[in-house]
């Protein structure tokens, strides 16, 4: 069943970051869409639409791959 999860991500400051995070998250299996609400220097809201809910570890790893980004706080579905 498709899931819409909103992650709070820190460490994003510019459009480049948005692009990097989006492309890394899209590469995760089952992800059909990523949108980012950028809050430069603060907590940005990253909404991931996927066929199945994603493992938090996978998301953290993808964020780590994209740069210095971290998950902050719990996710909202």
């Amino acid at each position, binding site marked *: 069943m498709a899931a819409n999860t909103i992650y709070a991500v820190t460490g994003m400051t510019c*459009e480049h970051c948005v*692009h990097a995070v989006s492309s890394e998250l899209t590469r995760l299996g089952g992800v059909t869409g990523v949108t*980012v609400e950028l809050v430069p220097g603060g907590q940005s809201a990253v909404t991931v639409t996927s066929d199945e809910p994603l493992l938090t570890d996978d998301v953290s790893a993808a964020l780590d791959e994209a740069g210095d980004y971290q998950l902050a706080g719990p996710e909202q579905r």
Partner: protein
Amino acid sequence: MSQESSPDSTVIGDRPEAARARSVELAIGGMTCASCASRIEKKLNRVGGVTAVVNFATETASVTYPPAVTADDLISVVEKTGYTARVPAERQAEVAEAAQAAQHEADSLRIRLLVSLALTIPVVLLAMIPALQFRNWQWASLTLASPVAVWGAWPFHRAAVVNARHSAVTMDTLVSVGVTAAYLWSVYALFFGTAGDPGMRMSFAWLAAGSGSGNTYLEVASGVTALVLLGRYFEARAKRRSGAALRALMALGAKDVAVLRDGTEVRIPAEQLAAGEQFTVRPGEKIAADGIVADGRSAVDTSMLTGEPVPAEVGPGDAVTGGCINAGGWLVVRATRVGANTQLAEMARLVAGAQAGKAPVQRLADRISAVFVPSVIGMALVTLTAWLAAGHSAGAAFTAAVAVLIIACPCAMGLATPTAILVGTGRGAQLGILIKGPEVLESTKAIDTIVLDKTGTITTGRMALVNVTAASGTHPDDVLRLAGAVEDFSEHPVAAAIAAGARERLGAALPAAEEFASHDGMGVSGIADGHAIAVGRAAWLQRELALAVPAELAVRAAAAETAGQTAVFAAWDGQVRGVLAVADTIKPTSPEAITRLRRMGLRPVLLTGDNERAARAIAAQAGIDEVIAGVLPAAKVDAIKQLQDAGRVVAMAGDGVNDAAALVQADLGLAMGTGTDAAIEASDLTLVRGDLLAVPDAIRLSRRTLATIKGNLAWAFGYNTLAIPLAALGFLSPLVGAAAMAFSSVFVVTNSLRLRRFRPETLASTRLP
């Protein structure tokens, strides 16, 4: 040349790869934030055997890699991550290329603008003046308007698409949507509607109900494009060259240096100097690198670093900084830090760091568009559904919906900011206020604190004679005349101040002096008017000439030192006869400037690298209570940051190289035109005359300009917003569209022109234009 070096590893046979690893520094391009740097670092480190450190501030990657990997491999990894990498040999060419690319962009913008303007004028004329509407005129219109709507507006279309991929909406989106809507609608009307009829005349009624497909809006499509391009062109011309501050800083370093090799001096380029080598510095020459004095005594001008106007006296064992000027005698220095490790390079990094830390401010127009565009699209959809729901035909419903899109695009928006800035900067230039960073004006919130550098900003930066006291039995004029005569021969700023001061106070020429001798910066001696004179420090007079300083003069000297001044004694005929106090003096207009700044609601803070006593003395004269003294350039940046963290919006005025990074960090940076290039390039405003009185005026001008920009934007959007209901109800006519365009543009331009009447506060004794 790429710096390839073999490491210190001497392990042979066991791990031959490690022994043959190479290292290189790559110039990385395209990074916009520190996260980009760490991303590249991760990717590079993933490659087998590679260790990389990427520095965002300096835009370089220091990489060590095994023979199995080539530099090209590294470059392709970086490129795959989405950035560019170059081996530094090409850096010079790269800088030139960047400058050329910027020029190309400006040129292509200009061509687009001129062609669009040329084509738009006939389109608008044809649409507005029925008498000109010859048979099949609308097809001519289409031919003229098409290049404008498609090619002329291309930058907006492209930006809108790129932004849409990131779900971002900016002014470009708004323009693109409006132009496209108007153009496509016109094409539809021409081919499928009644607008293509040969005898068609544009209806001139204000409220043209139901005439949708009988009208073309080509003049809107091309007019909006042309006007917004015009605005962009103004902005491009005013854009500051990036990297200019850093370049100015790096230009401060010495170009070449006289290195001592085997006892002979060899002149080599400064980059080739290695740590540990000894080099000579002649009087007046720049010191090539950070080091320790090995031989010689002199006075070194450290104002670049500390802001102290008094040169620091140095002798063997003292540390000196690269880039400072050797003011006194000949020195031999052993280099301790060269190249990227010098204090000068550190300051460049500070500036780069401060510049990197500034998040690019989202333009006001973009922020408004981000809200406006979705609302407009929403309204268009609502219009569409409402019409359909009310039972009208799809065609009519579409007409109304598209009309909303067309009218919602405010073309004056493209002119709102650039015209205000253009007029504001023009007026400022007339008043000696150069606004170099117009993008800063948009983000200037209410500034509540003004940080001022001391030397060269509040003070003249030059030593001047402030006091002369004679011992009992001696006339002060004699002290002036004799001390001045001898000091006239010295290059030392203190000496120059005494000589100049003496001339001024006596109102006469100084007697000629003979047998002048300079004693290692401690004092000077000579013969004038038949007396053997010595002028210098108390310690030196005592040690060399066995002259004691009388109590009354000693007290005077102590008082001067407490006030942060420098005191020297003059002696002749076996006695110390007088003391002269020299200090950096406050500019005559500074106290008044501080008063005015307070009146504007700003809190003044004195921030200087000079010592506490001198700082407090000047602060008292200027009327400033808050003083932060003895700070090095890095600490100046921190001081600004602390003020900002405390919630204050900080403007900073400075002139020295040591102010450059702090000027970048401040919310508004003002540089004295009389100061260093580095400070001028690093700041947002330059006060050409270096008069502190220009600071309150500059702040008022930028506030007024910002208010004008906001007013312009409000009106630009306002006019078109008023017309939206008209469009939604189906009453849009080309006339309404053109009228909105014309009136809002005229208003914006006229409002901006009001800035020409900005007047500086005049001082009773000063006449300003």
